């Protein structure tokens, strides 16, 4: 009998519940709904069950885009994380240099993403761009990011590294600053080498921060859209069409809502799965080491 009184608290949750339902749950259910229907025209749909899922999963162009995306994400992670740690290790701990370095490093993060793409478009143009002209004229290497797939890949990756490494640097720097001085003092007395200090003190203590950095960078790079779209528009042919652009082309370009809905759910689940794997691996790296 007394329990009924406690239930009144649920009414306080109702407004939030309505807002979330309106903005997230109902649209999500709509997507699920579309993914199992063939939509001829707005309002006219035939139930087709798992047909879209089957078609999407067997689409060879999807497999190519997925592979491209994987290579892109892992390469970019493999460059940005070690580079970020290395730069964070060199930043000063005290004094006016700290603010100066952090502000300058954070500048790329403040630029709107489509502007980042535009900056690199102009920068890399072989006729008027600083980088394009330098590589072609001064270094003598033929470089054209609109014509050559390899060049466009390289340019997109360098742009991503330029844009996002500062995030890793800032996170790692915060992690490093949290290490008390006594650890370095004890390591000095123990006669530890610079590498030993990094491996046994700094890296383990940065584990939490690195996990955030890896997860953030992975998720963002796996969903990347604006920058490569502005820079290459998908690349010469399909060569820099990553997953999100593939999805958009399908949904908006071809106005095929059924397969697009199915694909977005698959996309979501893939990101969820890979993030979970990263998280579990990094958390258990700390626990399993000494066994």
């Amino acid at each position: 009998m007394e329990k009924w009184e406690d239930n009144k608290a649920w009414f306080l949750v109702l407004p939030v519940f309505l807002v979330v339902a309106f903005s997230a749950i109902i649209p999500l259910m709509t997507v699920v709904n579309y993914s199992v229907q063939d939509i001829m025209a707005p309002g006219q749909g035939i139930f087709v069950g798992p047909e879209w899922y089957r078609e999407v999963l067997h689409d060879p162009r999807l497999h190519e885009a997925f592979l491209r995306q994987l290579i892109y994400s892992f390469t970019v992670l493999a460059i940005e994380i070690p580079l970020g740690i290395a730069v964070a290790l060199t930043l000063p701990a005290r004094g006016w240099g700290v603010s100066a370095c952090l502000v300058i490093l954070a500048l790329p993060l403040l630029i709107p993403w489509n502007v980042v793409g535009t900056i690199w478009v102009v920068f890399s143009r072989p006729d008027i761009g600083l980088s394009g002209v330098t590589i072609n004229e001064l270094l003598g290497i033929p470089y054209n990011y609109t014509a050559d797939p390899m060049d466009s890949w390289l340019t997109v990756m360098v742009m991503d590294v330029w844009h996002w490494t500062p995030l890793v640097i800032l996170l790692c720097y915060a992690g490093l600053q949290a290490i008390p001085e006594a650890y370095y003092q004890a390591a000095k007395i123990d006669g530890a080498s610079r590498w030993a200090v990094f491996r046994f003190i700094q890296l383990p203590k940065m584990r939490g921060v690195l996990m955030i950095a890896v997860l953030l960078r992975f998720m963002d790079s796996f969903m990347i859209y604006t920058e490569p779209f502005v820079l290459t528009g998908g690349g010469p042919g399909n060569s820099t069409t990553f997953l999100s652009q593939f999805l958009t082309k399908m949904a908006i370009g071809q106005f095929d809502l059924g397969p697009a809905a199915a694909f977005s759910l698959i996309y979501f689940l893939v990101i969820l799965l890979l993030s979970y794997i990263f998280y579990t691996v990094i958390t258990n790296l700390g626990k399993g080491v000494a066994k």
Partner: protein
Amino acid sequence: MARIVLDDLAHSYRPHPAGPDDFALKRIDTVWEDGGAYALLGPSGCGKTTLLNIISGLLIPSQGRVLYGETDVTRLPPEKRNIAQVFQFPVLYDTMTVRENLAFPLRNRGVSPADTAKRVMEVAEALDLVAVLDAKASGLSADAKQKISLGRGLVRSDVAAILFDEPLTVIDPHLKWQLRRKLKEIHDRFKLTLIYVTHDQVEAMTFADKVVVMFDGEIVQIGTPQELFEYPEHTFVGYFIGSPGMNLLPVTVEGDMAAIGSSRIPLPAALAEKARAAQARGAKLELGVRPMYLGLEDAGSPHGAPARIQLVEDQGDCRIVTVGMGEVTIKARVPEGRAIPTHEARAVFPPEWTRMFADGRLIK
């Protein structure tokens, strides 16, 4: 082995010190004998940690020299000196087991695996860590972790001195005495010089053979706990040591008596003569007596000086009585069972326990 000499040492954290206030350490000239157990005692901010870091090499002093035996080690980095330091909170390598933690300093110095294993076992036995040798160091309790930190210092056979920077701060109170006893055992067994920094006088007095009291960047007194208690050379030592600290009353000397207000306190003749000489020089005189020696008698007694009982605090095994004498309040420590007068009383100052200070320094 490790007779540590500090010669004309001073240190300032500022690059261009202007006056004495800029110096964290003012003038330090001392000798730490080989194999001694020293406590470095003082309030927060008095320079104890600075001094410790200079001795261990983590800090290079602005002026002066540090000598180990005959060798000048002032600029020698810590890993080349044969010292170890234990910090306020346990400093461990989290990813390693206890065994690997203990072996780390030896591996860095290129000691053979066989010798390393033997030495690690020896130290683990001395510290009762054998049971947890293969456990991960990060999962242990705080006192085990501090023992591992200590072990990393002991494991090097060339270590001659161990420096402790308030190591028992994070340990539970009921484990502190166990660790202190363990430290004494280690001291007896390995015959090392131990320098133990603390602001807790009970820890200092129970641990050390000699206590070094520091205040405001200077060493104020070095002595055994007994000497510090009975003959404090500075009013600060009198006040800091003892709970509650020594009572200090501003007095003038008239003949063989110390005068405060209208009260007269008898002094031993020799002491009174020296006090009069100091007074003639213009020194400010203070009379000091420890609460446990201050006597309280009934108002009708012919001894002592008139006083008023203000407050009685029962501490279980004794009672602390706050007594007013004119404008000054002093405290007496009365053992359980003895009667305390109410309201009016007489404060009795035993001459053998009465000390006189001129400008803060003991008149001997």
